[in-house]
């Protein structure tokens, strides 16, 4: 590929790409994000290739693996252009039918379409599916249109035009002003105004400055950044180069966690292609501006997502945070002014440059502008990535986009902001999701994790789970975090195991105060959030665990018991067979009984007892009824007198 040496050449190249594309041709896009690949997208892509060739359609059909469009619940997702037909949960076996019916005969394969569970209506196009309809997908909307390994796809959509505009029509100061005017705030969790951060780095006197993409996404259950990195790496690169120009930096790093192999691969390819096209490296687009970027692999420490720890890790030192000030904007990587932004923040930059700050700030609330990607997971029907304008209510996200709680269960809480976030109960579902409202509710925006919990979730156990994570991920440098999180975790473990005592709640609050106020970095300062938010909204659950040794959600293993109601037991022999600890005594026509001494409380019997019996009962905080005497365990069947006789006979001989 020849280097592109001017904006005019870039535009010509884009027209070239578009002119080679037959608008009437069929384009099959298959999500090749990490989630869909895990459920077989690779095989589907291969199957389409073979089938299209077999049916002789290869001339007018283009097949590509694309980035993640977000509807992970129903993956693998296949979108067929030009009619934008969206098929869900496609398997390789469906491929021949899709090719012969949809591509050849232009008819639909009904069973692969989205069906509205309430109305029963089918949705043909992506835009008609409620999951997508209620979003504003400025960033991830392009994922399904782009093969992330192919720069032409990004260029065809107007890629790198923002870079050309910045380099030839704007001064660095104007770029900073535009970003400031857009009121974009950092998407990594802090919510600091991006433009002000850029300005500080721009104004810091130094010859060498750095720009960094923070792609060390480590929150359990969160994958927003991964989807953008894997699905549209050029958008991040373009944002980064624009930022470098604005700040006056000629060297950048993309810090990607090692656990994201596909993201690393796609980012590596994108950098190579950008260099080959003259969009990265020396004299970008003939503008005289030089910028180079390197990829650094994070070694797996959660705390390296904290910017000062990330910088030390980049320098080859242990990833431990240091005190701020000085802030990285004045003293960052190797002591030089450094600007670090999250993946999603960088991806917003080309959009703001192309469409203007006013366009961007029409989305969102007064103090939180733009859209935000959330990973909606947990007890929710539509698991996936959701991009919404700031200000949409939690209720709309959970019920309109997420379609509510599966299994007819009741909603209990939603945990936002990653492991150090907070739990918000049903009474506060109508708060508008933005930086400030979530903070007021005792949670945080974080980087966009959203975990939905139903009535079966114990909130004390949730706090224990997150404190365990944070305790393991604390670097251990400062004592309030190392010791405070460890002690809080110990107390929570005791409470969930029935060892809680009076005074534990007050001690938790005291530890939370010192950890929150005195810790060195944001990890420690936000680590008490899971405890404080659950104490704020679910204090009665803590009290019930401590005083009555009872878990109201029947979830804490040490506080529940299982027993079999003799009046309901059908003696079907399923639970004795499946019991993982051999604790269930019973046989054909002999009522089953759980030996409490042997029971390991795995709950298997509770789950597999056929619903027509529903005989296994889970209790908490009350004594287990005594087993019925052995002589009363024999069931005499009335339905079939002949069988009953035979069965009883067997029992007697036994």
């Amino acid at each position, binding site marked *: 590929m020849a280097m592109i040496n001017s904006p005019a050449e870039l535009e010509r190249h884009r027209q070239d790409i578009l002119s080679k594309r037959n608008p009437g041709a069929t384009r099959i896009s298959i999500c090749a994000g990490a989630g869909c690949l895990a459920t077989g997208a690779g095989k589907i892509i291969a199957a389409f290739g073979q089938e299209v060739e077999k049916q002789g359609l290869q001339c007018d059909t283009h097949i590509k693996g694309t980035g993640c469009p977000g509807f992970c619940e129903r993956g693998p997702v296949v979108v067929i252009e030009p009619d934008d037909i969206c098929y869900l949960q496609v398997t390789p076996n469906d491929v021949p039918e899709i090719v012969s019916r949809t591509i050849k005969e232009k008819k639909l394969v009904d069973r692969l379409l989205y069906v509205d569970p309430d109305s029963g209506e089918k949705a043909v196009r992506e835009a008609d599916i409620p999951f997508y309809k209620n979003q504003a997908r400025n960033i991830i909307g392009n994922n399904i249109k782009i093969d992330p390994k192919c720069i032409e796809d990004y260029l065809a959509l107007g890629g790198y035009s923002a870079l050309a505009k910045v380099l030839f029509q704007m001064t660095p100061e104007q770029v900073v002003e535009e970003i400031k005017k857009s009121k974009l705030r950092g998407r990594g969790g802090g919510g600091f105004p991006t433009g002000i951060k850029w300005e500080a780095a721009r104004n810091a006197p130094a010859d060498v400055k750095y720009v960094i993409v923070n792609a060390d996404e480590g929150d359990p259950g969160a994958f927003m950044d991964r989807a953008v990195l894997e699905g549209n790496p050029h958008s991040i690169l373009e944002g980064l180069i624009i930022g470098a120009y604005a700040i006056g930096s000629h060297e950048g790093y993309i810090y990607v966690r090692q656990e994201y192999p596909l993201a690393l691969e796609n980012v590596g390819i994108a950098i190579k292609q950008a260099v080959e096209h003259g969009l990265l490296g020396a004299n970008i687009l003939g503008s005289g501006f030089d910028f180079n970027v390197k990829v650094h692999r994070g070694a797996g*420490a959660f705390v390296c997502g904290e910017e000062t720890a990330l910088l030390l890790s980049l320098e080859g030192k*242990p990833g431990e945070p*240091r*005190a701020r*000030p*000085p802030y990285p904007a004045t003293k960052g990587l190797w002591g030089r002014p450094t600007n670090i932004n999250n993946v999603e923040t960088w991806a917003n930059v080309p959009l703001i440059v192309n469409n203007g700050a006013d366009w961007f700030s029409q989305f969102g609330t007064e103090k939180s502008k733009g859209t935000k990607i959330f990973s909606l997971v947990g007890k929710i029907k539509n698991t996936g990535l959701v991009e919404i304008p700031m200000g949409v209510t939690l209720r709309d996200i959970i019920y309109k986009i997420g379609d509510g709680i599966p299994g007819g269960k009741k909603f209990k809480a939603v945990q936002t902001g990653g492991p150090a976030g907070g739990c918000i109960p049903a009474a506060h579902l109508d708060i508008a999701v933005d930086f400030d409202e979530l903070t007021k509710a005792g949670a945080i925006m974080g980087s966009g994790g959203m975990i939905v919990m139903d009535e079966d979730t114990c909130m004390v156990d949730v706090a224990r789970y997150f404190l365990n994570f944070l*305790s*393991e*991920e*604390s*670097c*251990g*440098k*400062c*004592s*309030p975090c*190392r*010791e*405070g*999180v*460890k*002690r809080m975790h*110990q107390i929570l473990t005791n409470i969930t195991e029935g060892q809680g005592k009076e005074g534990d709640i007050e001690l938790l609050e*005291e*530890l939370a*105060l*010192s950890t929150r*106020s*005195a*810790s*060195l970095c944001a990890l420690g300062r936000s680590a008490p959030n899971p405890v404080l938010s659950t104490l704020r909204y679910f204090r009665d659950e803590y009290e019930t665990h401590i005083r009555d040794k009872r878990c109201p959600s029947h979830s804490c293993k040490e506080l529940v018991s299982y027993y079999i109601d003799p009046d309901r037991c059908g003696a079907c022999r399923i639970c004795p067979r499946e019991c993982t600890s051999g604790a269930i005594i019973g046989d054909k026509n002999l009522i089953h009984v759980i030996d409490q001494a042997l029971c390991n409380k795995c709950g298997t019997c509770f789950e597999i007892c056929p619903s027509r019996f529903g005989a296994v009962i889970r209790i908490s905080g009350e004594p287990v009824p005594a087993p019925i005497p052995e002589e009363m365990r024999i069931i005499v069947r009335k339905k079939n007198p002949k069988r009953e006789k035979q069965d009883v006979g067997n029992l007697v001989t036994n």
Partner: protein
Amino acid sequence: MTILGAAQNAGVVIPTVCHHEKLQPFGGCRLCTVEADAGGRTTLVAACVYPVQNDLVVRTRSEQIDKIRKVLTEQLLAYAPESEVLKNLALEYHADKDRFPKEPSFCILCGLCVRYCAEIKQKNAVGFVDRGPNREISFIPEVAAVECWDCKECFRLCPTSALQAAFVLMRSLTSSVSPAKSAAKNGNQTIAAVERHRHRGSPVASDGNGTLLQTTAKG
């Protein structure tokens, strides 16, 4: 100039454990937490690392600060209940040394030994290993066997009476890189004695003067 430095110049006492005048500020123990008012916003900051600026108003004692220092002292006392430094802090801030279950490792991870060896001696014979609640200090046997016997300067910096540094040093030296050889070279009786104890499975430490002390290992 940090808040701590300014306070010391003015004769105002701010408690510290991990701070040492010869070493770079660390900000680990956080006992020097103070309230800083800048531009109408009050934040809690570590005095040993926070730079002073014009019009910065600092409060070194308040109900909130005392509460924090009390809990921090109690947390550290679980590891080193007999440390004089911590006992004095406990008196000042009414800390209960039995607040948390005891885990007497004698090390409160202030890092004075680690930083002194790195910054002043530039030997890096002792370092931190692991992270979070599993963090501990460890001598690097290959370096320690050569450097430590004639130095031991870190021992007297230890706020928990040198027991931990001595113990960890012993353990490192007696469990790898032919300690017998280095013991013979130095004519040091302690190592041989420790070696004998180690084989009997008894955790042993030295106070640095060749005297053996019984102690309990962390982990």
